[in-house]
């Protein structure tokens, strides 16, 4: 049977077909189900397992519709006399899925032809990215076709990873963590990247089954600090930001066009924000230029760690000079602001007073505005305070409710992503250091690459008795695991995802396989998780043949009202609806309007710390190419020039020309960047988009083990970070590390696109003033 | 009447000249200036004076070649362009006179020169079998006078040659 049908990818695109005879299995499942439904099975439990409990909409009690398992069998009978259209030679068909290149969760459409995935495009249906995609998204193809993927399970034998069969691999897991195993409660942990949707649900239930609560979620690039501030001041973690409504955006290092929250969504807003009439103005204050900064009307090289001070200074001028009504603010806040008059502020931040005043004028004139704070502002010991200070401005300028909206409630709390940041990395390092775990499973995270040297991650990992890596590639962490389980690429797998930052409409994004798995040896994450749960705690999920069946059940269990099919609360599994959702790639789930519960407090922004030995700040800025390093193995992104420096295939150090002059460094010289925690060397690229006190070494390169395109290229600035963290949230202070610079005397030709750095008087990028534009295209 | 050829070799050109002068003065029977061929190691434009103008058709070949090159070039180019499957434009006309002029010019010269050398080969009676009366000394430094006439007029010619100190005298069939 497999032979006859194996040719068609129809099989695996529509569903994962089990090989044994369908009818038997169908009826078998049927009977099984009878058995199950006989023994009183707690529906609440079930709904929880389906990730849909605690739904705002009431769900009438009913039995689990019993035919689904058999339904599965029926739909697969596809006549091969009339092949599916995606089997017709020369006909390309688009299928919707989700982009997993970063946690933003944009919808994509993949072009399938002759069973091959050829191109990814944004899904126009998606309210998040409206058909658009960033370069990382485009490179998702290469992530799928990467020549260095792990194709079979590997187990450590005598210190080496050797191929094993899935049976052996699973038995290993069974021994270490299975129901029969002797692993005590709380000695097990998951270490993952952002996981959401039903995979998240299964992961939770696996953890419960393991009797553990240790789920470390690590994202080097995150916005935990901003979220915490929002939570504390607005009562909502992810209020909806409306750049398009703002007339002025003041961003403290928030690279919302590149890596911050949901870049493509914000890019769409940015386009509207920039379009006439009343075109918006963008002011970016950050120590080193990001993609967003590179598009700013006014760019301020603010001294690191003083963003908060700058915000307060602006508030001060607003109140003192521009007489903005500050009655809403409590006394304590006003006192805090009082200290920061123009001169003080410009002394602290190193920004000329007149420019501060100009900004304030603009802020006053152009309302509503939107003030956000991102990586470089939050990545300090006072990051939380700086972000709070920025948020304070939103209060002062009355942007809350105008450009910062509460948005709707998301109806399925369990499906929301388990979100993390760098705090979990530190926590994990600590816990692992204290030998708290007998077994740790890794998925979608690479702690060994991301962890600074001071964490001694390598030793700590080695100390863990059993490490299983659910991984698509052989990266640093995977290479140290005892067991490597090759997971399917996002283009081969089923799943549901819930973006942390929802677009204009809340939605569950559906991920479906765009083509047959490239390698027979890989398995979908969902299937693996399902298996793990079954293995550890047989029972509730046993009757699900595979993750696909589980998903369909879960889908059926979603209340009809939310599926937009009117009153029919207790809907059986509706294949057409299911297909429609797969076509759209997402299911929009309306939710109740949320509301702010505001609480303003005085941020305590300590200034920047003088440090004679290490005069400079190291800024390991994320760039939209390699992200946190997970894309360094994609040759397209290696070859795509960095947006700011146009350098390819390497690491570099961005230095301000004046600093370079002081050090006697010229472009192309290799500089030694020494921090307390170690030192790295990189080729210097000089430009004025860097504060003189800062040296930028973008993160993402410097992999020791990550396939042919990434291994041994560049350096990893994260390695030499100081053990600093934000006082309030515990997030690592990525931008707080102090370094000193030295020439090595050696130099290396920068491999970069573009020779001349300026236009030499040509009319290539012509620029006109905003007034000019208003004259010609303003409202008339 | 049997025709007969006789060749006399002379040490230098002046002697040869004087022979011809004599032939013209004393009117040897049966020998006219047109029967005389001078074979010399170098070019002597001045013999025209004695032998009289003799025709040379090379320039006509040249003219023909040039005209052919001109017409053929012009037609060939514009025909090729006109029947070009993909007609490359770049904002320019299909048949571009200005640029074609260059090529026509080249073709004119090419065919003119080919025709010229053709005319040379034909007009100079080249690629003939070597005549029995040729002597390698001619290519060295001696001047030969070859006269074609009837058997019985040969004698006086030989006398004349010897009179002018011919270094060597040969006879042969035509």
């Amino acid at each position, binding site marked *: 049977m497999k032979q006859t049908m194996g040719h068609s990818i129809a099989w695996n695109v529509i569903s994962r077909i089990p090989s044994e005879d369908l009818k038997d299995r169908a009826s078998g499942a049927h009977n099984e189900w009878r058995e199950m439904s006989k023994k009183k099975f707690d529906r609440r439990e079930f709904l929880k397992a389906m990730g849909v409990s605690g739904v705002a909409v009431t769900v009438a009690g009913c039995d689990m519709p019993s035919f689904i398992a058999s339904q599965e069998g029926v739909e697969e009978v596809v006549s091969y006399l009339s092949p599916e259209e995606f089997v017709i030679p020369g006909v390309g068909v688009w299928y919707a899925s989700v982009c997993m290149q970063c946690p933003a969760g944009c919808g994509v459409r993949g072009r399938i032809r002759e069973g091959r995935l050829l191109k990814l495009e944004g899904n126009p249906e998606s309210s998040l990215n409206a058909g658009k995609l960033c370069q990382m998204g485009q490179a998702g193809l290469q992530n799928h076709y990467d020549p260095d993927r792990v194709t079979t399970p590997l187990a450590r034998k005598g210190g080496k990873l050797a191929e094993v069969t899935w049976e052996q691999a699973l038995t290993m897991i069974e021994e270490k963590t299975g129901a029969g195993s002797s692993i005590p409660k709380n000695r097990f942990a998951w270490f993952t990247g952002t996981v959401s949707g039903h995979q998240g649900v299964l992961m939770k239930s696996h953890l419960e089954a393991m009797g553990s609560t240790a789920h470390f979620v690590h994202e080097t690039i995150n916005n935990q600090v901003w979220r915490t501030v929002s939570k504390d001041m607005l009562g909502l973690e992810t209020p909806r930001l409306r750049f398009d409504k703002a007339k002025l955006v003041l961003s403290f290092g928030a690279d919302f066009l590149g890596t911050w929250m949901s870049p493509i969504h914000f890019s769409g807003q940015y386009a509207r924000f920039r379009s006439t009439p009343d075109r918006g103005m963008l002011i970016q204050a950050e120590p080193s230029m990001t993609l967003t900064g590179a598009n700013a009307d006014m760019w301020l090289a603010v001294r690191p760690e003083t963003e908060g001070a700058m915000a307060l200074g602006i508030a001060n001028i607003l109140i003192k000079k521009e007489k903005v009504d500050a009655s809403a603010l409590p006394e304590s806040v006003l006192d805090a602001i009082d200290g920061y008059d123009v001169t003080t502020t410009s002394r602290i931040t190193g920004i000329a007073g007149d420019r501060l005043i100009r900004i304030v004028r603009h802020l006053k004139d152009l309302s509503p505005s939107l003030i956000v704070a991102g990586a470089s502002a939050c990545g300090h010991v006072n990051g939380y305070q700086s972000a709070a200070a920025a948020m304070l401005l939103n209060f002062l300028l009355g942007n809350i409710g105008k450009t910062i909206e509460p948005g709707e409630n998301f109806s399925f709390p369990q499906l929301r992503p388990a979100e993390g940041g760098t705090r979990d990395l530190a926590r994990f390092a600590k816990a692992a250091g204290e030998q708290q775990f007998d077994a740790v499973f890794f998925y979608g995270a690479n702690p060994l690459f991301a962890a600074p040297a001071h964490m001694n991650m390598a030793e700590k990992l080695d100390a863990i008795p059993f490490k299983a890596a659910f991984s698509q590639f052989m990266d640093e962490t995977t290479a140290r695991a005892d067991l490597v389980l090759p997971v399917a690429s996002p283009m081969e797998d089923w799943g549901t995802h819930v973006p942390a930052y929802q677009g204009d409409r809340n939605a569950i994004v559906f991920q479906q396989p765009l083509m047959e798995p490239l390698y027979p040896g890989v398995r979908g994450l969902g299937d693996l998780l399902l298996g793990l749960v079954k293995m550890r705690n047989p029972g509730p999920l046993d009757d699900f043949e595979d993750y696909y069946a589980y998903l369909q059940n879960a889908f059926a269990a979603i209340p009809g009202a939310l599926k937009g099919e009117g009153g029919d609360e207790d809907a059986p599994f509706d294949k057409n609806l299911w297909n429609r959702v797969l076509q759209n790639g997402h299911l929009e789930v309306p939710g109740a309007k949320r509301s702010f519960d505001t609480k303003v407090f005085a941020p305590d922004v300590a200034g920047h710390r003088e440090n004679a030995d290490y005069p400079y700040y190291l800024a390991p800025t994320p760039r939209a190419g390699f992200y946190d390093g997970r894309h360094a193995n994609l040759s397209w992104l290696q070859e795509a020039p960095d947006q700011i420096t146009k350098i390819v295939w390497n690491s570099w150090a961005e230095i301000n020309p004046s600093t370079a002059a002081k050090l006697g460094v010229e472009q192309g010289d290799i500089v030694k960047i020494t921090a307390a925690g170690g030192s790295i060397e990189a080729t210097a690229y000089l430009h004025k988009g860097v504060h003189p006190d800062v040296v930028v070494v973008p993160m993402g390169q410097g992999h020791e083990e990550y396939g042919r395109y990434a291994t041994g290229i560049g350096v990893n600035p994260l390695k030499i970070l100081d053990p600093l963290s934000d006082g309030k949230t515990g997030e690592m202070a990525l931008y707080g590390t102090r370094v000193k610079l030295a020439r090595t005397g050696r130099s290396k030709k920068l491999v970069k696109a573009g020779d001349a750095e300026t236009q030499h008087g040509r009319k290539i990028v012509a620029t006109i003033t905003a007034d000019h534009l208003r004259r010609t295209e303003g409202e008339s | 009447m049997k025709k007969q050829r006789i060749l006399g070799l002379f040490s230098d050109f002046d002697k040869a000249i004087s022979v011809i002068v004599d032939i013209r003065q004393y009117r040897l029977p049966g020998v006219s200036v047109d029967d005389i061929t001078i074979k010399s190691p170098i070019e002597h434009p001045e013999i025209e004076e004695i032998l009289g103008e003799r025709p040379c058709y*090379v320039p006509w070949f040249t003219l023909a070649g040039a005209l052919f090159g001109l017409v053929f070039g012009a037609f060939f180019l514009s025909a090729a362009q006109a029947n070009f499957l993909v007609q490359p434009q770049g904002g320019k006309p299909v048949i571009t006179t200005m640029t074609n002029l260059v090529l026509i010019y080249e073709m004119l010269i090419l065919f003119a020169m080919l025709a010229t050398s053709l005319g040379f080969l034909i007009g100079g009676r*080249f690629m003939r079998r070597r005549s029995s009366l040729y002597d390698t000394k001619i290519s060295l430094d001696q001047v030969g006078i070859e006269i074609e006439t009837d058997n019985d007029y040969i004698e006086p010619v030989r006398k004349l040659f010897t009179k002018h100190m011919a270094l060597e005298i040969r006879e042969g069939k035509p």
Partner: protein
Amino acid sequence: MMAEKTAQAAKDIDETIAWARINADVLRSMENPRKGYWVALAVCFAIFMVGVAAEVYQYDVGMGPSNLNNPHMWDLYISTFIFWIGMSHSGTLLSAILHIFHVDWRKPIYRFAEAMTTFSLLTALLFPVIHLGRVWNMHWVFPYLSDRGIWPNFRSPLVWDAFAIATYLTGSVLFLYTGMIPDLAICRDNATGWRKKLYTFLSVGWWGDDRQWRNFRKTYMIMACFLIPLAVSVHSIVAADFAMAIMPGWHVTSFPVYFVSGALYSGCAGIITLFVLLRYFFKFEQYMTIPILEKLCKLTFAIAMVWTYLNLIEFAAVWYGHDVPAKEVLIAKFTGPYSPFFISMLLIGMVLPFSLAFQKVRRNPPLLLAISLLLNTGMWMERYMILAPTLSLSFHPYTWGVMWPSFVEIGIVFGSFGLFGLFFFAFVKVFPSVSMYEVKEMVYHRRRVVFDEAEEKLHPATAPATASASSEDGT
């Protein structure tokens, strides 16, 4: 004594020289090569092989190893192409011009000069081929009927090149060959064995009778007339490759003239080089005499001045034309990374020729050898400087970039000199490198002139009588 010596030296050729001697000397130069000859041949072959190896590698891998890159799509290949085309110029062109004006001192030296033309042309032909990304499709440049209904693009200066060079090659070969036929006859009469066969075939039955001489004279003159405009057009068309492009520094009206003068310049220098070498190796002192060498030097000097002038007005045109990119290129030539080449090129090309103004220099063959070699290096650099700076910066700043040729590229260029050497060495042993019959003519006419003068001096009154008297002598 001294005066007499100079008088002797002032003569282009000693007209008392016996004709047999001429034959003997020249024919000697063609037979039994000495060891030195074989060594030279071997060296040339080795050099050529270097080029071949490099080209084979490049053919196999692609154009990459030559270091060519996005702005620098052409580099040494094309500049060396222009160089060889330039070399090919003076030979035929000068010989033709001098022939038209009946300048008889051309006669001893034009043969090898024309050979130089032909062979440098053949060498030059390699480069457009080598620089093609897909050499194996080079024939698509030629117009032939194909059922695909596709033709070359007659608008492209590269196609003009193909036409012009083909014509020029045919023309100069015909000119060289036609002028050689009488000499080939001489060879035929003195040769044995395979040479006999060869020369018999090549001399197409030259018996030296008046009819042949008559046609020969006309033909040769006509060809000379055609070759002059042809040669000029060829190099103008090569110049068009650049002048027709819109690139700054190339889009210059004076380019064709500039190229032609440059070609003559390098060509003359080339002739001087070979002159000195042949004179030394084949002991041609009698024929390639110092006075002729001096005349050559003067000619070279004159052409050098023309070239200098055109160079300067080109600068002026660019400067006052005030086309920004062109100006940038000009400035970069003086200050940029290529400035060492450019400035030394200017020194060699503009200043060095003044040394030829000194008689001492003009009469010193070894020194002239050195100078002429230098001049040619300069001219080669000139060609390189026409390409590289413009390519390295043109309109679009983003794609500027300096590029230095790789060993593969240099190797191929190097090899081309070997090839030229091979051709030339083969030639001098198979064909007479001095035109015997024309030297004879030269001697003949000069002697005649001298004798007439002498008789004038002796008895001017009885001048007319002498003719008849001499005719009486015989009886």
